[in-house]
Every structure is written in structure tokens, then in C-alpha cells.
């Protein structure tokens, strides 16, 4: 495997430095060595020269919210299949959520994920640890030991920490380590047994609704806690207009508060649940056109730090249930980039450097890996995603490297995808 690669004549975009021009990128010894017009002498130092004419050359894409289901539900996804899907989608780094079975709640669990990822040799795989033992929301998990083992943050994702006192204690304790606290904001009392957005469509479909307020109430609480305690806080998969307003306000106040937005919350509304297709059952639920507009507005204004897929694979047999009984989640890692392009570039909300900021340096900063990843600065990891921005294709879920097919975008026409994914100077995906 070549560790020395020269990528020539691409449109090189590095959101951190503001670079956006046609030039070359040289990777030597697994690291970024040079960016700019590189003389022909360099070709002799490398094993591989890639012609990226007409292509976009970006720092490797980072997705800070995926579910790889290992350990516990390997029939749905493994770290190997998930990270293979990641590189096929253009992602060189992903962050696994700790809601596995058992959950990631001590240093051994963290090391297990890292070991499986090393064996798979696909993308870099990071992991967040649980905030509370068993993700039960009561007792603190061993955050210190997980921090030492390399956990990049803490979350009970899948549920929010309900008890304000527990969350306050967790934030205070975790503030020793400088790692981000991430939250799936959902007040379970307000959420009730909701399975889709509370609104007109839930009413006519006769399904219990999940009130937008459930997300907003917990987010408001957490912002108050984070502000007083002074800890970096990331609001996961923000889905409502009012929640985004809270993020906007917190950022305006100068707080270290970030948020992530998923492709489905930018493209799909609760109206899609009509027909009871469980591929549209996701948590937070699909909201309304007004919410989509608010999320796009925030993205346009630079309020959002990261785009994250919330890739949540499930078996077909699990999704082939009554809407009420089926599990939440959408598998989208391999098409996420194309979906963001559709929602944000095709729709003229933002341009390429703005999009890539939320997929590279933005998420890298949230999880504190911006010292080694997320840009093309000399000496950073040789992680590069080469994107063909024009290629058109139809989403074929049967070709997914992910083990799961619970994807509502089946058959969609998309434009733009990763053609080459380079991780640490190695070509890990070549779809050109």
C-alpha cells in the first residue's frame, strides 16, 4: 500500500485555511506534506499519482454521529461493515455512539471499538462513551477511564439524560477532561410514547406524536447548565426551528456550544410518514417544512458546526413491523454526502467551502481532533476525500456496504459523490 501520494489538478478546498483553488496535494509518510503547485520532481517521490481534474479535493470527511451496532447487534452492522460504508461515502473518520449492547461505559469498551476498527483498516473510528452507567440516566459512567482510553466525548445517545441534577453532576465531573458533552435532547415526559412528529400528520395517521418541545426543553436546560459549568456541549441532531434558535442564541452569547444536523432533517418532513413506511421512522422525528427552512437558514448563517448522518442501521425484519413497533433509524452513511449536496448546494443555500467546513474542521473541533485532522495543514494526517461534484446516480441500497437497507432514499437521483477516499496515505476506497 502506498503511503506517498500526489493528487494533481484538483479544486483543492481547505475550509480551515480558506484555500479554494486548482492545485496539487502531496502526501508523504501518511501525512500532508505540501499543498499548492507542486513541481514534477515530486512524482518521483510517490508511488501513486492521482489526476483530480474536475474533482474537488477535500480534507477527509468526518461524521461525528454513527451507530455501528458492535458489540451486540452485529447482524445489523459491525465496525468492519460500517467503516467500509464510511469510506465508500467519503468519510475518513467517524464517531460511534455508545448505545451498543452492552453500552460503551468503560475503558475496555472503548479499546474494543478501537481494536475492531484497526483490524478493519477502513476509516478511522472514534467512539463516545456513555454519560451514565447502562445509559440509564442515574449513575455516572467511568468517564475518566474512557477519556484516558481515547473516547472523544460523552453521550447517552438514544436517550437524553432526564434528571437535571444528574446532568449537572456529569458536566461538572467531565469538565476535568476537556471533552465534549453531547446530548440527544429529548424530555421523555413530554415525548411520551411518540413515534413521529406531533402535528397534523400524526393526528390523521392516528399515531402518538413526539412534541418538538421535548427537544427544546432539554436543550434549553442543558445550555443553562453548560453556561454555568463552562464545558463544551454539542446538541446532537437538531431538528426543530426553536431548538436551532436556542443554539443561535447560545453562540451569540459566546458559549462553547455546537450542534449537528442530519440529512433527513434537511430533506424529509413528517408528511412522508403517510403510508406508514417505517423507513421514515427516526428519532428525533421528521418535522415540518418550516423546521427545514430554519435549519437551512442557520446553516447559511454559519450557526451549525457539523453535518452528521446519524447512520442507524436496522434489519429489514425489524423495520417490517407496525409503525408503532418498528425501531427508529435511517441508514444513510453511504449517501450522506450526496444528500447534503442536494439539500444545500443544489438548493443554493451555501457553497462548497461552507459545506465542507461542516464536514471537516467543524466536526474535528467538536471532538477535539483538529490538531491532527480536519484540514490540509502540513503534518496533519493524510486523510483526503476526492469528490466528483457532477456525477449523477441513482441510490441503489442493494449495493450498500452497510449490512442494513433501512434507507428511505432508495431510488432517489443524486448528484455528487466521493470517488477516492484516502486514509492515512492509503487509498481505502476507489470508486473512480
Amino acid at each position, binding site marked *: 500500500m502506498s503511503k506517498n501520494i500526489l493528487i494533481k489538478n484538483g479544486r483543492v478546498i481547505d475550509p480551515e485555511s480558506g484555500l479554494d483553488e486548482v492545485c496539487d496535494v502531496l502526501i508523504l509518510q501518511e501525512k500532508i506534506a505540501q499543498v499548492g503547485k507542486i513541481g514534477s520532481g515530486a512524482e518521483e517521490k510517490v508511488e501513486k499519482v492521482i489526476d483530480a481534474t474536475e474533482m474537488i479535493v477535500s480534507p477527509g470527511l468526518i461524521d461525528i454521529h454513527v451507530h455501528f451496532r458492535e458489540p451486540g447487534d452485529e447482524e445489523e452492522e459491525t465496525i468492519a461493515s460500517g467503516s467500509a460504508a464510511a469510506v465508500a461515502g467519503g468519510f475518513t473518520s467517524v464517531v460511534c455512539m455508545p448505545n451498543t449492547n452492552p453500552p460503551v461505559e468503560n475503558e475496555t469498551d472503548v479499546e474494543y471499538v478501537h481494536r475492531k476498527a484497526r483490524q478493519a483498516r477502513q476509516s478511522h473510528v472514534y467512539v463516545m462513551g456513555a454519560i451514565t452507567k447502562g445509559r440509564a440516566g442515574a449513575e455516572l459512567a467511568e468517564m475518566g477511564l474512557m477519556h484516558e482510553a481515547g473516547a472523544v466525548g460523552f453521550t447517552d445517545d438514544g436517550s437524553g439524560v432526564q434528571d437535571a441534577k444528574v446532568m449537572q453532576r456529569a458536566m461538572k465531573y467531565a469538565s476535568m477532561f476537556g471533552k465534549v458533552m453531547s446530548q440527544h435532547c429529548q424530555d421523555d415526559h413530554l415525548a411520551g*410514547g411518540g413515534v413521529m412528529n406531533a402535528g*397534523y400528520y400524526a393526528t390523521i395517521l*392516528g*399515531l402518538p406524536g413526539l412534541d418538538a418541545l421535548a427537544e427544546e426543553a432539554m436543550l434549553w436546560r442543558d445550555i443553562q447548565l453548560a453556561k454555568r459549568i463552562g464545558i463544551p456541549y454539542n446538541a446532537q441532531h437538531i431538528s426543530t426551528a426553536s431548538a436551532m434558535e436556542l443554539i443561535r442564541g447560545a453562540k451569540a452569547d459566546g458559549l462553547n456550544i455546537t450542534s449537528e444536523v442530519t440529512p433527513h432533517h434537511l430533506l424529509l418532513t413528517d408528511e412522508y410518514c403517510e403510508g406508514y413506511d417505517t423507513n421514515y421512522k427516526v428519532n428525533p422525528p421528521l418535522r415540518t417544512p418550516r423546521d427545514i427552512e430554519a435549519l437551512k437558514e442557520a446553516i447559511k448563517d454559519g450557526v451549525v458546526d457539523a453535518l452528521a448522518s446519524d447512520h442507524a442501521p436496522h434489519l429489514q425484519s425489524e423495520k417490517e*413491523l407496525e*409503525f*408503532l413497533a418498528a425501531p427508529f433509524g435511517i441508514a444513510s452513511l453511504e449517501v450522506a454526502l450526496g444528500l447534503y449536496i442536494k439539500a444545500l448546494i443544489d438548493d443554493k443555500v451555501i457553497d462548497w467551502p461552507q459545506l465542507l467546513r461542516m464536514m471537516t474542521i467543524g466536526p474535528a473541533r467538536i471532538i477535539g481532533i483538529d490538531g491532527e485532522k480536519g484540514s490540509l495543514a502540513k503534518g496533519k494526517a493524510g486523510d483526503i476525500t476526492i469528490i466528483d461534484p457532477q456525477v449523477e446516480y441513482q441510490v441503489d441500497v442493494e449495493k450498500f456496504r452497510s449490512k442494513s437497507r433501512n434507507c428511505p432514499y432508495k431510488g432517489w437521483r443524486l448528484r455528487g459523490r466521493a470517488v477516492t477516499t484516502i486514509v492515512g496515505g492509503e487509498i481505502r476506497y476507489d470508486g473512480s
Partner: protein
Amino acid sequence: MTITGQENKFEWTRKHLLGLRQLSADELNHIFATAAGFEQISTRSVKKAPPLRGKVVVNLFFEDSTRTRTSFTLAASRLSADIIEFTKKSSSVSKGETLLDTAKNLEAMGIDIAVVRHSAGGAPDFISRNIDACVVNAGDGFCEHPTQALLDIYTILKNRQSMEGLKVAIVGDIAHSRVARSNMWAMTKLGAEVTFVGPPTLMPAQVDKLPVKVSHSLDEVIEKVDVVYMLRVQFERLGGSPFPSVREYSRYYGLTVDRMKKARPDILVMHPGPINRGLEIESEVADGPRSVILQQVKYGLAVRMAVLFLVNQAAVTEKK
């Protein structure tokens, strides 16, 4: 329209009856006309007709029901179908045999019509997408209960000339009521004005987007309406306590003798049953001269016969 047993030229094409939201006024009227034709069978000495001879109807009930199931059984037997009873308590989690497997197994036995009741909204829709047999929704979660609303409207039409311009109040737990939803869709399509009456805690999300008026005062509404439709307070579906006590609920939303004094003299009092006497309706009112509650049960039979007949006919036509 008035109900007649006359042939009309309308052609019914639906092999499933999943809800009334998707139905047109013509389709609704066609069901009523068909039901009128079946009504007299119950008055004959031999209470049977042959249209479903050799067909198998399965009552696929995942939720408790006595009257709806009995009514469907009787309707199917009057049409000479063979009837299988299948009852199974469903749970909201995925344990044991899935709904899909249950439906596929029954299909493998060669059923023609599945009458489905389930606690999950959309369950009959889900089954209809996965099996060949006809599916009739006998109540799904709080989504729809189409045959109940059809028999309700049929009962009104037996007592009034038309739904056009009629004012109907539906009172009680609207949020969790499939009966309210089905009646709302059908009644408004036929030109009636529907008002949902109940406390805000029993109204569904974005009720303002539905084609109805909303009121929290039965006292104000009772004076103006032609029909008052009392919903059963379903304690098993409420979750939490949306009102402080039964006593207080009855005070505001119970149909009492006193409250009836404010009503129009020709008002129709309806209820889908079973009644909680003294809670949402006082016995004197339920059994009184303005009550058509037992007529509802009676006409349910003809309406369900019509529905079984029509979906089967559509399936047969589709195969030809």
C-alpha cells in the same frame, strides 16, 4: 342524499377499506345504497344471501372487541362466507410472531377477506400492502374505524333526509378516538358541519388544521346541533390523567338530563358503545326518546355486509 336500494351506476373499485379519509362522497353514498339493499335480509325468515359463498373471512383481532367482531361475524355469515376467528393480544414491542408473519400465514391458508383490528395506527394498511386478500379495517389505534362511522352516518340518514348542512358535535376524548376521525372525514365530505368538543388535553395535535370546529364547552354547543355524538371515555388509552376526576369530567362533558333540556327537541343522541353509564352519558338520556344508540348497532350489520360485499366484488373484478 336519501338512502334507496336502487341500483346506481357507480362502480366500486377498492378491494380494501382502510379508512374514510381516502373515500369520495360518491363512494360513501354507494356503500349506503348497497347497505340499504342488504337491510331487508335481516327481516326475512331465512336470514342469508349467497354473495360470499365459498369465501373465507378471517376476523383478525389484536385488540379486545365484542360488538364489532360479533357484527362482522354475523355480517359475513349472512352473506354465506366461512368465518375464522383469530384473536391475539398484540404488544407494542416486537416479541413473538410478527404481524407480517401472522398475516402471511393466514394468507397461505387461503383467506379472501381479513377484518383487522389492531392497537397500532396503520396496521391494516401495513397488512394490505403485504398480502393479496382484501383488508377491512375494524379499528386501528386512534387512526380510523371506518365501518363504525359508516353505520353512524347510515343511522343519521335513516332519521334525516341528508347530511348536507347538519350540525354534529362529537364529544369526549378526540385525541385517542378513531371513531371521531372516521366520522370527521366522512361527515364533512357529505356536507355536515362537525364540532369536536372536549378539554384541550383531549384534543389531538394541530386540531386547527382539521376540517372541524373546536369547542371546549358542551353547554354552548348542545343548543345548536342536530346530532350529539358521545365518545366513550377510554381509560385504557388515556395515559396520565388528562382530566382531574371522573366527577369533573362528567360535570363539563357528560350528557345529562339537564343538559338535554337545552338541546333541540329533535336532536339525535349517539354513542359507539359500550356506554359508561353516568360518566359520559346519563342512563335516562341513553335510554331516552332521542337516543338512536341501538339503531346504530342494528344498522351496523347491513353496513358491514355492504362493505364485505363491495371489497370482495372489487377483488373478483381485479382478478378477471
